């Protein structure tokens, strides 16, 4: 440690970093002192509400971020069109729910019921399958058409291709389905704006059904992914390909097929996140994937890109930062993105490979 300090050269960049760090720490300490003992504008119930909102949105960010991280871990490319993959999943889920709402239920289930409300669990499962399936298909095609011919090209080339695919998919959705905002048709048991009342500090805070549902589902999906990566043969080959493509090929792993499957898995997660987004927030249009896409990528970098637990943690952290940050710093809520990106910059200045990321070798950076 002392040796390390002795070898430290005081470059202008380092001095600036130290100054920025000290400034941020002083400011944060002052703000936390203020919010805890000073102003008291926000009661515990409000903080609880922020916490719930942050966890719900954080779960969705985490799911999308995993998609970025998986692809980055294997191909070292930013899949810029990943947000659009999620958007198409949102559309697919919407159409599935509309279809279920239009199908009348058999008379045995009850009078005047549609399929959606007669068998809500089955309908929801099918909706998620539709969303995840569509996104997986889009991800697969994306890889085949836009990325596979570019393997081995310089780094910027696949990025531009991904940007092009993103623009294409967004506008295709607009032209196909129209620019207007649409509203998700939830089953009655998951109606938006209904939920459990939790007493916090003498007041009641609502935990919405959709929020709890999304959060639990995202946690389940993350656990499933973790098991898949750590315990199954596919996960093992994915890790092998991420480590070294040629060595993996020599061990008899079909690299192309593993890459395709990676895109399918990240598509499934993005599609599920897209359907959750629709169910929880209701309104959506063809822009729905863009902002979450960028946020999730930020989350992936925050946690250390290429690192799956890092992406999960980064997503949750980003969600919490967005919902609690403005209140904590006493800033306006329209600045939540500024806070999120500033935290990202600060984290990268002090830990250039993200919170959980290991120092990458030159070739992977």
């Amino acid at each position, binding site marked *: 440690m002392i040796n390390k300090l002795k070898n430290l050269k005081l470059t202008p960049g380092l001095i600036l970093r130290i100054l920025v760090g000290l400034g941020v720490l002083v400011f944060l300490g002052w703000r936390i002192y203020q919010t805890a003992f000073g102003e008291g504008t926000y009661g515990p119930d409000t903080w609880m509400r922020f916490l719930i909102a942050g966890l719900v949105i954080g779960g969705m960010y985490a799911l999308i971020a995993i998609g970025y991280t998986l692809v980055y871990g294997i191909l070292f490319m930013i899949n810029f069109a990943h947000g659009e993959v999620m958007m198409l999943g949102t559309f697919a889920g919407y159409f599935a729910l509309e279809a279920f709402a239009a199908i009348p239920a058999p008379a045995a289930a009850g009078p005047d019921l549609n399929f959606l409300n007669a068998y809500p669990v089955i309908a929801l499962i099918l909706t998620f399958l539709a969303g995840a399936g569509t996104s997986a298909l889009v991800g697969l095609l994306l890889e085949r058409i836009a990325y596979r011919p570019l393997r081995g090209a310089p780094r910027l080339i696949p990025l*531009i291709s991904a940007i092009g695919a993103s623009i294409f*998919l967004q506008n295709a959705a607009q032209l196909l389905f129209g620019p207007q905002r649409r509203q998700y048709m939830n089953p009655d048991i998951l109606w938006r704006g209904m939920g459990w009342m939790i007493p916090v500090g003498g007041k009641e805070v609502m935990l919405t059904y959709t929020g709890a549902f999304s959060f639990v589902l995202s946690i389940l999906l993350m656990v499933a992914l973790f098991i898949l990566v750590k315990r199954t043969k596919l996960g093992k080959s994915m890790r092998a390909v991420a480590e070294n493509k040629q060595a993996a090929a020599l061990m008899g792993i079909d690299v192309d097929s593993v890459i395709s499957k990676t895109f399918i898995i990240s598509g499934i997660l993005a599609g599920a996140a897209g359907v959750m987004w629709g169910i929880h927030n209701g309104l959506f249009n063809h822009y729905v994937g863009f902002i979450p896409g960028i946020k999730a990528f930020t989350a992936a970098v925050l946690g250390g890109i290429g690192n799956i637990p890092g992406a999960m943690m980064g997503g949750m952290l980003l969600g919490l930062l967005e919902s609690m940050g403005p209140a904590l710093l006493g800033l306006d809520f329209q600045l939540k993105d500024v806070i999120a990106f500033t935290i990202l910059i600060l984290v990268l*200045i002090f830990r250039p490979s993200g919170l959980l990321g290991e120092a990458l070798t030159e070739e992977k950076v």
Partner: protein
Amino acid sequence: MKTILKNGLRAGITFGIVFIFLLLIGFINVGSTMIGDILGTNVQDQVPVNNLLITLAILGLFTGITAKSGCGECKWWMALLGGLTAGLVSGILAWLAIWITGTLSVGGAELQTYLPNLDPEDMAFLRFYSTPSAAANTYLIYLSLSSLAGAGLAWLLSFKNWFSRGWDTAKTKVSSWFEDKNVSDVIHNPWATAVILAIVGVALYFLPLTWGSYWNYIMGTVAIYILLGLGLNIIVGYSGQLVLGYVAFFATGAYTFALLTAPTPHGIGLNLWLAVGASVVVSTLTGLLLGLPILNLRGDYLAIVTLGFGEIIRILIKSDLLTDITNGPKGVTNVGQPNWFGEVFNDVNYMHLLMLLVLIGLFIAKRLKDSGTGRAWIAIREDQTVAQATGINTYGSKILALLLGAAFAGLAGALFASRNQFTGPEDFTLMVSINVLCIVIVGGMGSLPGVVIGAFVLKGLPELLRELEDYRLLVFGALLVVMMIVRPEGLWPAASTHFKQPSKKQPSEAAVEVKQ
């Protein structure tokens, strides 16, 4: 035999899906209308159904050509067989699409709720105003026959990659013409150069006078994007730093200029030329502020940090926090315009100014590239570790590249604000950064003619395609993908790039190694 059938099947399925996609985004109708416009056969906005047949025939021809191109050099009957297969397959898909949507539409289903392009009126046109099954049969027959014709035509001409081959031939011809002894003597003769420059200068002087204000507006936008492209080219093309938040410098330049010259909200009314200088300085300082702490990051981390920085600037400009300073979401109006001997600049003057600045910018960028610093940048781009080992101050060089790039953006921002007389936060979205990056890449990284060509292609061409307003961005996105696959080194690559271009037919080295 088997391969040709397989190729035909593949081409057929691809084009069948393309047909359904075009149908659902309403392009079949728009295309038919456009054909009517070109041929002059539209009678009072009524498009004759024959145009629909022409659209189908064009689509079918492409199907046939694609099916044929899969079999390389093969016999005529094989080409025709492939074309027929492709046509039949795509025709069957089209048959299904038309029959299903047509029957639903005739049955009174409100398709347009979910697919807005399938309203009853358009559907009636697509059905040739007859029954769904009769229309579907017409589609099948037409697509098959035209695909057959397309395959036959392709066999006759046996053209293969004629576009890219033609482009390359043209380029080699031009460059060999430049290398020719006599020609190069003329070029290197200072008098000849002076004459050529004078002719170009006169042409550049008179063009804006004759174009009219619409063209001046478009070309002005192109010129501003050339300046931006030149700046980003220094950062991305020369020194290899992937910066996705270039718009931040553009925005600071525009806002500095606007706030210093506009009557509201501050009413400073600074001299315009000083204000331009101030914009450049402020943008450069922004670059310094961003660059000092983060330029040690590499690759995608740098990309996302700069992307975040661009968003931070935009959101801050828009936010309540800075509304008193920046006028918030409303933007700044009545931005100052320069005078020319007592007269306020009009579009022609702006065009002249922009052209002059683009030429100066090109000159500076060229000199920078050839300088020692420029070579240091290229060394850093190719291999940072090696560059460092040869004694290059990589950190300092990278900061310098960022500062110079930011200065270009500041200048472009000031001109942008002044020309539009307005600047608002929504002018500075992420799409601007992406567009400029695409200009640099599509033109050819590190290549100056590439930047100019890229700006014309990416900002000028879409303006020309106003007819297809709705489809512009769709085509733009698809073109970027195709471009990266077919010509990843850019339209006009820099002379000394070390890119290995992965060609489509030959898999890249890595892929071969992996497969073996």
